[in-house]
C-alpha cells in the first residue's frame, strides 16, 4: 500500500506556515543555522552531491553536481530559482510558493552558501500574482530577520534576493530563456556552451534550480545524505511531489517516495479512477509520452517510467478514464505547444502549428489517412532536431498518441465520430486571421 512521505510538504497544512514565525516554530531555518554554524560551503555541496538529489524541474540533473560546476574564484555569482511552473498538469511548485515559501527560500540560501551566490533571483511565473506577493513578503521577512542581506546570522556570508515576475511564456521556464528574460529580453533559448554555470546571468556564473529541488535541501541538511539515500530507488533516491489531476477521486498534490507503483498510487493515494476504468495516464506533465493502461503497472521513478515508455518529467500526473476522447486530449496538448513554441527553430515553430492544424481538421471530420503520415513525419521531424527540448516535448505526445490511440484518429477520419465545436478554443491559432500586428 502506497503512502505519502511528506518532506517538503511536512507541516504544509499548518495554519499560517507561510509566515516566518510559524515556520520557525516548526523548525524552520534550523538547517540554515546548521550550515552557517557548522559546515563549509564545500561540505554542503558534498552532502547534497552524496544525497543523490536530482533536479525536480524536469531534467533530473543531480543538484550537487551542478553546484560543483561553479568556478571557485571570487566575484558575482547568481542563483536563479525557477518558479516559472507552466507545464500543463503541473502545479506542485505553486503549492510550495503559496504554502511553504520559506522552505524554498531556506533551501535557496543554503544552495547560495554552498557555491557562493551573491544574489538570488526568484523568477516566478507572471500569472502567479498571488504567489509573487506572498514570496515578496517572505523575502522581506527574511531580510528583516537577518536571513538575507549582509552577514547572514552573524556569519560572513552575504546574499541579496530579488523576486522577479515572469514574462508570460512557457519557454521562460527553460533555463537559458529564463536568463534572457531576466535580463529583459525576449525569452529564447541560447546556445550552450557557454553553460550558465560558467557564463550565465549577466555573463556571471549562474545556477538555475527548480523550486522543489531547493525546498528539499533543508531536510537533506538536517537529516543527512544517508537518510535521503535510504528513500526511493537506487537511481531515483528520495521523494517527489506529484500534481495529480484528471479522472481521479482525490486530485491534488502528493509527495511520495520515488518507486511507488503507479497503479497503487492511483488507487490508494489518488482515491482511484473516477467515472470508469483507467484508459491512460500522462505521468510527467504534458511533455511526456502517454501510457495506455496496459503499461501502467510500473514504478514511479525516473528509470521505472522510462522502461515503461514514458518519463517522470515534472511529475504532472494526469489520469484519463475509459470515456476520454484521446484525439481531443492531443488537440489540447498540441495547441499548447503551438502556442508556446518560442519560434526560434524551424522544426518546432512550424511543426507544432502544422500538427495542431491537422489535428483540428481531423476533429472537424475533414481528415484523411495520409494526414496520419504527415503527423508522424512532422513529429519525427521535431524530435531530437529542435534547438531546445520543447520541440521534443511537443513531439513525444503526438508520437505516443498516434502509437497507442491510432484507432481513435481513424474514427474521426472515417466519419464514425465528428466534433461539433461549441466555441472557438481559447488561444486557437490560425494565421490567416492575423491582420497587421497590433503593436
Amino acid at each position, binding site marked *: 500500500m502506497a503512502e505519502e512521505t511528506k518532506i517538503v510538504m511536512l507541516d504544509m497544512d499548518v495554519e499560517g506556515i507561510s509566515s516566518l514565525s510559524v515556520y520557525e516554530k516548526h523548525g524552520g531555518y534550523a538547517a540554515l543555522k546548521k550550515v552557517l554554524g557548522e559546515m563549509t560551503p564545500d561540505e554542503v555541496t558534498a552532502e547534497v552531491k552524496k544525497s543523490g538529489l536530482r533536479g525536480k524541474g524536469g531534467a533530473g540533473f543531480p543538484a550537487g553536481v551542478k553546484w560543483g560546476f561553479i568556478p571557485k574564484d571570487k566575484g558575482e555569482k547568481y542563483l536563479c530559482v525557477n518558479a516559472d511552473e507552466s507545464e500543463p498538469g503541473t502545479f506542485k511548485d505553486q503549492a510550495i510558493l503559496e504554502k511553504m515559501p520559506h522552505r524554498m527560500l531556506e533551501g535557496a540560501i543554503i544552495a547560495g552558501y554552498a557555491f557562493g551566490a551573491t544574489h538570488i533571483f526568484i523568477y516566478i511565473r507572471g500569472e502567479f500574482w498571488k504567489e509573487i506577493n506572498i514570496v515578496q513578503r517572505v523575502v522581506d521577512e527574511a531580510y528583516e530577520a537577518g536571513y538575507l542581506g549582509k552577514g547572514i546570522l552573524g556569519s560572513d556570508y552575504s546574499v541579496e534576493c530579488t523576486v522577479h515576475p515572469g514574462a508570460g511564456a512557457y519557454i521562460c521556464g527553460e533555463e537559458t530563456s529564463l536568463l534572457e528574460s531576466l535580463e529583459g529580453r525576449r525569452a529564447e533559448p541560447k546556445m550552450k556552451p557557454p553553460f550558465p554555470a560558467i557564463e550565465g546571468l549577466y555573463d556571471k556564473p549562474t545556477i538555475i534550480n527548480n523550486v522543489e529541488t531547493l525546498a528539499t535541501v533543508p531536510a537533506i541538511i538536517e537529516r543527512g545524505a544517508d537518510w535521503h539515500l535510504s528513500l526511493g530507488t537506487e537511481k531515483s533516491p528520495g521523494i517527489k511531489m506529484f500534481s495529480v489531476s484528471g479522472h481521479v477521486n482525490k486530485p491534488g498534490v502528493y509527495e511520495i517516495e520515488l518507486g511507488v507503483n503507479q497503479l497503487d498510487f492511483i488507487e490508494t493515494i489518488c482515491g482511484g479512477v473516477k467515472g470508469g476504468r483507467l484508459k491512460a495516464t500522462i505521468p510527467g506533465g504534458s511533455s511526456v509520452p502517454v501510457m495506455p493502461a496496459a503499461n501502467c503497472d510500473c514504478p514511479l521513478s525516473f528509470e521505472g517510467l522510462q522502461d515503461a515508455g514514458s518519463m517522470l518529467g515534472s511529475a504532472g500526473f494526469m489520469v484519463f478514464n475509459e470515456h476520454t476522447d484521446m484525439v481531443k486530449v492531443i488537440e489540447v496538448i498540441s495547441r499548447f505547444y*503551438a502556442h508556446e513554441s518560442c519560434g526560434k527553430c*524551424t*522544426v518546432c515553430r512550424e511543426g507544432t502549428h502544422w500538427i495542431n492544424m491537422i489535428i483540428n481538421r481531423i476533429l472537424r471530420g475533414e481528415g484523411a489517412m495520409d494526414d496520419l503520415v504527415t503527423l508522424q*513525419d512532422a513529429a519525427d521531424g521535431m524530435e531530437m*532536431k529542435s534547438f531546445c527540448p520543447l520541440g521534443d516535448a511537443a513531439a513525444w505526445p503526438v508520437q505516443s498518441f498516434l502509437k497507442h490511440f491510432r484507432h481513435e484518429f481513424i474514427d474521426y477520419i472515417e466519419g464514425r465520430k465528428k466534433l461539433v465545436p461549441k466555441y472557438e478554443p481559447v488561444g486557437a491559432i490560425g*494565421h*490567416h486571421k492575423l491582420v497587421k*500586428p497590433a*503593436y
Partner: protein
Amino acid sequence: MCENEKKLVKVKIDGRDFTVPEGLYISQAAESVGVDIPVFCGFDKLKPWAGCRICLVEVGLPRTIEKDGERVTVVSKLPKLQAACATQVCEGMEIWTDTELVDANRKRVLEFLLINHPLECPECDKGGECLLQDIAYKYGLAESRMKEPKRVLPDADVNEFIRLNYKRCIHCKRCVRFHSEVAGDHLLEFARRGSETLVLPKADDGVKSKFSGNEVEFCPVGALSDKLYRFKAREWDLGYTPSVSLADATGTNIMLHHRQGRIKRVWSRENPEVDWGWLSDKDRFVYEALYSPNRIKKPLIRQKDGKFKEVAWGEAIRYVVDNLKFYIGRDGKESITGIAGGNLTNEVFAVFRRLLTNHIGTGRYHFGQFIPGISLNPGDFLTAIMFDSTSWEKVTHSDVILAWGVDLLEEAPVLALKIERDMENGGPMLITANSHRTSGERFANIKYHYPYRKQADALRIMINGAAKPADAPEEIKPMIEYLRGADTVAVLIGNEMLSAPNATELIDLMLKLCHNLRVKLGEDGDAAERDQGLTPDITFNPIFRDGNAVGALLFGHLMAVGVAHEKDEAEGAKPGLVRLFQDILAGKSNFCYVIGSDYARNFPDAKLTRNAFEKCEFVVVQDQFITETAKYANVILPALTAQEDEGTVFSGEKRLQRLHKPDVSFPQADSDFNILRKVLVEMGASLRTASVGEYFNHFAQGLQVISHIDYGAIPEDGILLEFGEVMEDGQSPDPGSFITVDAPSKLEEAAGKDDGLMVLIPKLYMFNGENHSMNAEHFAQAVGKAFCEISPTDAERLGIKPGSVVELASRAGGIEVEVRVSADVPPGHVLISDSLPGIRLADILTLGEHTVVNLLPVTGSKAGGSSSGAD
C-alpha cells in the same frame, strides 16, 4: 588574424580526411574543403544562432577507451544531430553530411519552411539569388502536403528604404541579429512567438539605423527588399562593376549593379581590410540622386534675360574657352580661379590642376574640404597625413584609439563598425573626446567631453599631461594613463576639429600631443633617454568628410606648395579659400571655374561667397544639379559623378582604389575628365594621353609613392600607400623632447548663459541635407526635417517646448528650425547639422569665430522651418 597562428586539426568528413584550422564551425570547415552543407541562419559575420536546423549533421567525437589492456581511440556518434553552423571542429572529430538521417532532416526542415511560403518566386526580387530557392531545388519535396491555409500578413515598411514581406520570411533572424550584434540599433526585433513569430520594425518607435540596407543583401529570401530596386531588374540581367563609395572617407568597397544604362542598386563588395562587407545606407542609397528629375541633362548657358538655355556641348565649351581667353587677356592669367570639391577622382584633380597651372598659369585654386586657416600653413598637417596616417587595419589593431572631435558612427559609419567589432574581439581601447555626447561613443572605454569653445585648451592640458602625467588634472588622468600605457595609439580627428573656426590651431595642438606621446617617459617623469626603436607608435588619421579628400589635398596642396610659395611670397603662402573669395569680391578675379562644390550654400560665411559669385563676371559650374552656386553661373556643364566614371581615389587610410566605369550613361552628361580635356583641346593644348588610365600612368610617374603603380594593375582591394617607405634611412626619427604649452588649469565654458546667447555646434551627420542626399528621394525622406537640439536645462530655462520652432539668430543672420530636446547636448549649446535639409546653415555661421546665437521663439510658424536669410 594571422592564418598560420591557428592550430590545425584533423577531421574526417564523409569518410575523407582533412586538416582544417581549429575553431572553425563545421559548416565553415566543410565549405573550405568543398563539402556542401546548406545553411540559412548561419552567417559568418554573426554569432552562431542555430535556429533554422537545415545544417544538422551527424557528428562523432573521439574517445579513448581500454580495449584488451590497450588504450585505443574510438569515435562515437553523438545521439543527436548537431548544428554544423554552431559546432566547432576539434581534433579527431568525424562528420557525416550525407547519411539518411541528415538527408531526412533537410527534407523535413525544407518542408516546414515551405508550408507557409508563398508561391510567388516569379514576382519576388530575390528570384535567382534566393538561398531558399537554391536549397529547395537541391533537397526539397516536389509536392506540398500542406492542406491548411498559409500564413498571411500584409507587408510592412521597415524604414524609408526597406519593405518587409512577411509571407516570405523564414525566420532565420539574420536581420534581427545584425541590428543587435553589428549595427547595435535594434531596428528590427522578433515579436510574438511560435508560428506567429514575426520580424517587427521599430522605426515607428523612433529607432533609426544607418545600416539597414545590408539586410537586403543577407536576407536569404526575398522578405526584405530594397524599395529603390523592387521590380526593377532580375539578378541575371544585371551587369556588375566594382567601385568605391564616396559617401565618406572610409573607402567602402561597393559593387554597382546596373542594367540598361542605369545603376539599379549598390551592393557591398567585401574588402576585409576596409569594410568587412558592410555598407552604410548612405553608401548604398544616395545613388538614387543620379536619377533625380532635378539632374541637369544638357549644357546650359545663361542668356541676357538671366534664363538658362540648353546648348550643344561644342557651343558650351567654346563659350567657356572664349571667355577664359578673354579674362586671361584682360586681367592676366593669375586672375583665373579654380575650385573643386572632394568627391572627384585623382585624374580629375590632376587634369584640372594641369589646366590651371600649366595651361593657364594661375595659383588661385582650391580642391576639397574647406579647413579654416589650413592654407596658411599646410605643411605640418600634410606631412602628418602623408607620414603618420595609417591603414584602418592598423587603427583597429592599435592598443588605444583616441577619437577626438569625431563622431565615428556619423562620419565614417562603416569604419566605426569595424572598430567596434575589433574591440569586441579583444582589440583596441577606445577614448572619445567631443563637445557633446555622440552616438559613436557608445562602446568607448573613456568618454571625455570638453566645452565646445575650449577645445584648444582641452588639447593644451592634454599636451602638458602627456609630458607630465603626475601633474595632469584628475579628469584627464585616466586618458593619459591609457595613452601612456600603449605602444600603439591611433589618433583620429574629425569634423569637430577640421571644421572648427580655429581648425588650424587645433590641428597644430593635436600634432603636438602626438609628438609628446611619441616621446618616452623617463622614470623621473621627464623624457627618457632615446631608446632605439622603442618609440611608441602614434598614428594620425583625419576623418575627412569627402570620399577623395586625401586626393584633393594631394593635388590641391602638396604639389602646389612649392609653386605657390614663389608666386605669392609677398602675401604669404598659396591663397586659401577665404582669400580666393575676397579677391573675387575685390575685383582681382573675374573668371571662376567650379567643379563639384557648392560654397554658395555651405561656406561658413555665406555672404562672402554669394557676394563673390554675384560679383564674379564669369562663373562656370560643372555639377549634377543646379546648386546654389550654379544659380550664379554663366555656364553649367552637366557632369557625370565619379561613380558613373572611372578613375582612382584615395580613402582616408591612403588606400589607392579604382572606380571602374560601369555601363551607364546620363543623357548628355559627360565625365569631369572629358569635359576638362575638351576645354584643354579647345584651348589648343596638344594631349598626349587619351584615357583616364593613361593619364594616371602619366602623372604617377611624377609622384614617387605611386610611380611603380600601373593603372590597369591596381587590384580590386586597392593599394595602401606607404609614404614612410620613401624616407631615406628608414628609421623613425628621434622624437626629441617634450613640448609644453601654456594651458589653463581648468576648463571653464564661458558660454554666454547670462546674456542668453548659446554656442552653436555644427555637426556632420550621415543623414544630412547635402545636394546629393536631398536629391536621392528615399535618402532625403530618411534625412527628414531640419532640426536643432538643446539641453533639457536650456529648454526649461527658455520655456521652449520640444517640437516648437525657434529662430536661431547670430550676428550674421537668422534661420528658423524645429527644436528637439536632448540630454546629449551640454547646456548653453545648440547642436545642429552642418548641412540642414532645405535651410542654409551658413547664413548664421560666423567665419573665424565660434557662432553664438539667440534662441527666439517663433509664433505662428509651421514646423519645419525655413530660411529667413536673403534668398
